[in-house]
């Protein structure tokens, strides 16, 4: 097993390198660069762009150089731990990530915990009590969550909160707590805001978990081994949880590792509508404005998280299902 992990980590390093190249390539693929994007943003806001500034900055940031030269420079800096500088935010990239990573983690983890805590029991219930009223309700509700774009759902919840309470819930904190230290008041304030993104992310993500779990559990529930166990008088709850649920979770576990990169990007659109002070809006902004260093660092970071996540998934799979262990060893 250790050998396996070591091998995987080695491949991961190679892949990260490839990934960095592809990321950098993709980011610069759209026409234009960070400077023209900046000028465009000013113009869209009704401001005029500062003519000669553009050429000068382009020259200075080496944006006129060939792509490969820009990439190699970036890579060299990465290797010595310098993530570069964001033109758009006028800050070192590391500082930006540092200032937002904590809150991003908090929100995403909260959302994912709530999501799984709700979806897994519902999925099991839906399979065990197939075609009951509860199952139907979960199905319809889940699919509405899936079928309504998160963007619209977020806007709708915000608007309904406004209609009923007359307040606009924005971001994760009220103005008075935004720059404050953590305190009981701030936690309460945070909770009074964070429920909207959690609800939006959870409704959007619940249906897949419920349906996949239900479908796989249904495959298992009628298998002879379950019937036999039931016939032998094994307690129903213990019976279901012990084997069929474990098997039915395999497909979920196979992709659970991909939850990791969502810390940055799961809910880009939601985060923008809700003004969440997380990394998601920064990622989108950096992409739209082709802020190479910032976007590159974030995407690379997400890529690494995906690689790590896949490894975690594989290990979990092996742990949950001994048959897979043998399969991988061959």
């Amino acid at each position, binding site marked *: 097993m250790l050998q396996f992990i070591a091998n995987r980590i080695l491949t991961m390093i190679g892949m990260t390198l490839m990934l960095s190249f592809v990321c950098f*390539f993709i980011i610069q693929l759209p026409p234009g660069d960070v400077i023209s994007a900046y000028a465009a943003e000013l113009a869209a806001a009704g401001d005029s762009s500062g003519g000669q500034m553009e050429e000068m900055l382009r020259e200075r940031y080496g944006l006129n150089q060939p792509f490969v030269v820009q990439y190699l420079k970036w890579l060299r800096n990465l290797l010595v731990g310098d993530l570069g500088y964001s033109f758009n935010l006028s800050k070192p990239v590391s500082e930006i990530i540092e200032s937002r990573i904590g809150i991003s983690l908090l929100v995403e983890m909260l959302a994912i915990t709530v999501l799984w805590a709700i979806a897994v029991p519902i999925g099991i219930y839906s399979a065990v009590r197939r075609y009951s009223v509860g199952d139907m309700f979960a199905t319809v509700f889940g699919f509405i969550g899936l*079928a309504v774009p998160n963007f619209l759902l977020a806007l709708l919840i915000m608007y309904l909160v406004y209609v009923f309470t007359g307040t606009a819930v924005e971001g994760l904190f009220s103005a008075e707590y935004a720059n404050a230290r953590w305190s009981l008041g701030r936690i309460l304030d945070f909770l009074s805001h964070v429920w909207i993104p959690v609800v939006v992310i959870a409704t959007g993500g619940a249906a*897949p978990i419920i349906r996949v779990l239900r479908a796989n559990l249904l495959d298992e529930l009628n*298998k002879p081994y379950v019937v036999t166990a039931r016939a032998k008088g094994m307690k129903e709850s213990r019976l279901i949880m012990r084997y069929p649920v474990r098997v039915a979770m395999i497909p979920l576990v196979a992709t659970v590792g991909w939850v990791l990169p969502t810390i940055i990007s799961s809910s880009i659109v939601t985060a923008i509508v809700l003004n969440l002070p997380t990394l998601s809006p920064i990622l989108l902004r950096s*992409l739209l404005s082709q802020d190479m260093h910032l976007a590159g660092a974030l995407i690379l970071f997400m890529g690494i998280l995906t690689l790590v996540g896949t490894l975690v998934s594989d290990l979990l*799979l092996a742990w949950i299902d001994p048959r897979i262990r*043998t399969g991988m060893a*061959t």
Partner: protein
Amino acid sequence: MSRDQDMTRTDTADFEFAPPAPVAVSGTETQAQLIWRAFRRHKLAMVSLVVLGLLYFVALFAEVLAPNDPHEVNARYTYAPPQEFRLFDRDEDGGWAFRPHVLGYKVEVDQVALRRSFVPDPDKKIYIHLFPRTHETRMWGLFTIDRHLIGVDGRREVLFLMGSDRLGRDLLSRLIYGARITLSIGLAGIVISLLMGVIIGGVSGYYGGLVDNVIQRIIEFIRSIPPIPLWMGFAAALPRDWSALQNYFAITLILSLIGWTELARVVRSRFLSLKSEDYVSAARLDGAGDFRIIWRHMLPAFTSHIIATATLAIPGMILAETALSFLGLGLQSPVISWGVLLQEAQNLRALADAPWLLFPGAFIVVTILAMNFLGDGLRDAADPYGDTQ
């Protein structure tokens, strides 16, 4: 793991390949007939089948069914709410008669609030006729028709059963035309990613070893490039002179080329656990080829999962065009699709002032639910153990 189960499965699977099988369940029925019989008992699935049939019928005959030209702008009726619809009307001698009609609007322009206000006018009855002669349309781009299923008389009257949008276009007609793209392109993408996912995932899980390793690394690599920059990059790379529809078709293809990875991983993990099952070994010892083992023995073990994944992928595909539009990459006017229509509802003005613009959302939900229940029905019908319940 019981040996029983494995045997049964092998039997069913072999059935089609060996027509003169000694004992079928009820003499003359084929497996397809068996499934259909089981399926018909599934009421919800039957209803769903009818609903989907209707939707596809509507999509096919949009030109005939849509009461208005979906592109026709009506300057007097921007953001008009759905008209009040009545089936019966009092005729001259005071009795009730079946004469479907809607109430016309008194329109006032409020130049302070910058909008039109619509008050239903009980005296202004607009009668709805079957197959009246109204606007001209090219049917399937082949020939011109000027009669449509329903419509109203007179150039000055309007029929907005589901209200109108910001340019005064009939939402119902736009929904009908929108069904065409929504119910076709997205599905094509799903089929592609399903096939790729099952085949590549199957190969990876079945053979294991080096093949598995290489395929898994490729999947990991594709997955580790976040989708948004990928879309943006591809969108920039698409030829400029392509039409919006061509662009979107290309993007759908790209989406499905990414979309298969998730299913492939799932298929592979199931295969890894299945291939040590007795019935698989038995089939192999029996001399069955690899492809046959995968296709006839292993895949049927988790059709449920594949069906669930497919139904779950549909909303993703329908909504992808919306998510892409957010980046300026999706479908856009004058192309009409449900995603495009729903996108027009995504602002506070629509939510507060014109909630009927959310109708396309309801259609998407109904379609997805119907596809899902249909999938459930198929799964249950195909499940040889289903009847034990």
